[in-house]
């Protein structure tokens, strides 16, 4: 993989930050060069941790590159044919609620060059140790809460958002970094945000994760729940699964449940995973995919 671009110690520094962008920005300021003039190696992408626990800062190594920006890139790991002189853009989270401001140009002077976190300039230093430094705030979760609040407010929904750790399979325990609970929604509104078979809730969760991952360059997954809907659904699905399993056991005949989204099928699979008499399997494609419960042979 890519070698560490050790271009003679002097012009090389290391910087850290709560996320990659911040680390790079700090490094560029310290080095006193524009992003185009810097060789950036990611030492650690950092981790948001869960609710501030286990967070690790992002770390980068920067060196001033001798050639002008448009010259060929020296890193071997580069296969992206993206043009170097791409237009600058802001992809930082709008911490403000003014969504129409296209570039959340904050007062920090180094913002502009550091804004663009381009793959072409980031040499993913594979094999470099990712060591833990001091704990830091859970920035990714914070920005996820921000994004969800913004989405809801733009959807004309009055609600509160709070992050918590996932506990049950229905929460996405083991899969999501945090569950964002949406509360304070009045009753009529709840059904609207949840949608048929949780469709709107899933869309909200999907768009939220796209935005957060794009903004923070992380691959964290966040669950979204509205007034405990997923919990109630989980309980109901577990009961249903056990009831149908009982009939399968008695009749010796396979039965299929209604089509369900993946997260709900997973709950059914898990609910019956330890059942000695039946097995579960998902059949069908896409929207029509459903769980079949069959007698164990």
């Amino acid at each position, binding site marked *: 993989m890519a070698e560490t671009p050790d271009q003679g110690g002097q012009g090389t520094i290391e910087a850290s930050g709560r996320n990659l962008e911040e680390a790079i920005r700090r490094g560029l300021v310290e080095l006193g060069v524009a992003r185009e003039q810097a060789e950036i190696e990611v030492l650690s992408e950092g981790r948001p941790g869960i609710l501030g626990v286990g967070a690790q800062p992002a770390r980068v190594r920067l060196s001033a590159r001798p050639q002008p920006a448009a010259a060929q890139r020296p890193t071997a790991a580069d296969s992206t044919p993206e043009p170097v002189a*791409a*237009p600058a*853009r*802001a*992809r930082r989270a*709008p911490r403000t609620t003014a*969504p*129409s401001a*296209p*570039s959340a140009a904050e007062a920090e002077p180094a913002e502009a060059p550091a804004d663009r976190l381009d793959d072409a300039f980031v040499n993913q230093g594979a094999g470099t140790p990712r060591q833990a430094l001091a704990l830091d705030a859970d920035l990714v979760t914070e920005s996820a809460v921000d*994004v969800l609040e*913004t*989405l809801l407010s*733009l*959807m*004309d*929904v009055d609600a509160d958002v709070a992050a918590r750790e996932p506990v049950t399979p229905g929460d996405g325990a083991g899969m999501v970094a945090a569950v964002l609970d949406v509360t304070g929604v009045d009753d009529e509104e709840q059904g*609207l*945000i949840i*949608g048929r078979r949780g*469709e*709107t809730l899933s*869309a*909200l969760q*999907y*768009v939220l994760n*796209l*935005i957060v991952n*794009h*903004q923070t360059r992380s691959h964290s997954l966040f669950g979204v729940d509205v007034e405990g809907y997923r919990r109630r659904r989980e309980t109901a699905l577990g009961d249903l699964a056990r009831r149908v399993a009982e009939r399968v056991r008695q009749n010796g005949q396979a039965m299929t449940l209604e089509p369900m989204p993946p997260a709900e099928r997973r709950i059914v699979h898990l609910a019956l995973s330890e059942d000695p008499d039946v097995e579960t399997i998902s059949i069908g494609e896409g929207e029509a995919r459903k769980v079949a419960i069959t007698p164990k042979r």
Partner: protein
Amino acid sequence: MKELVEYIARQLVDDPAAVSVDEWRQGDRVVLRLHVAEGDMGRVIGKQGRIAQAVRTLLRVPAAHDHAYAVLEIG
């Protein structure tokens, strides 16, 4: 609704300055036409139109508040 589409699009594209949304109403239909830089089309449409579809689903909420339904067009 326009702001919702603009916000989501700007967060996902490479060129947020090129994002714009036209909104007009025809009876109970609210039509939203989203424009993005050509290279960003995939970022707002998604594989098999998944992102566009999710945005359409989200639009149902504010549309319902207005007793309307929203139509999202891209391009």
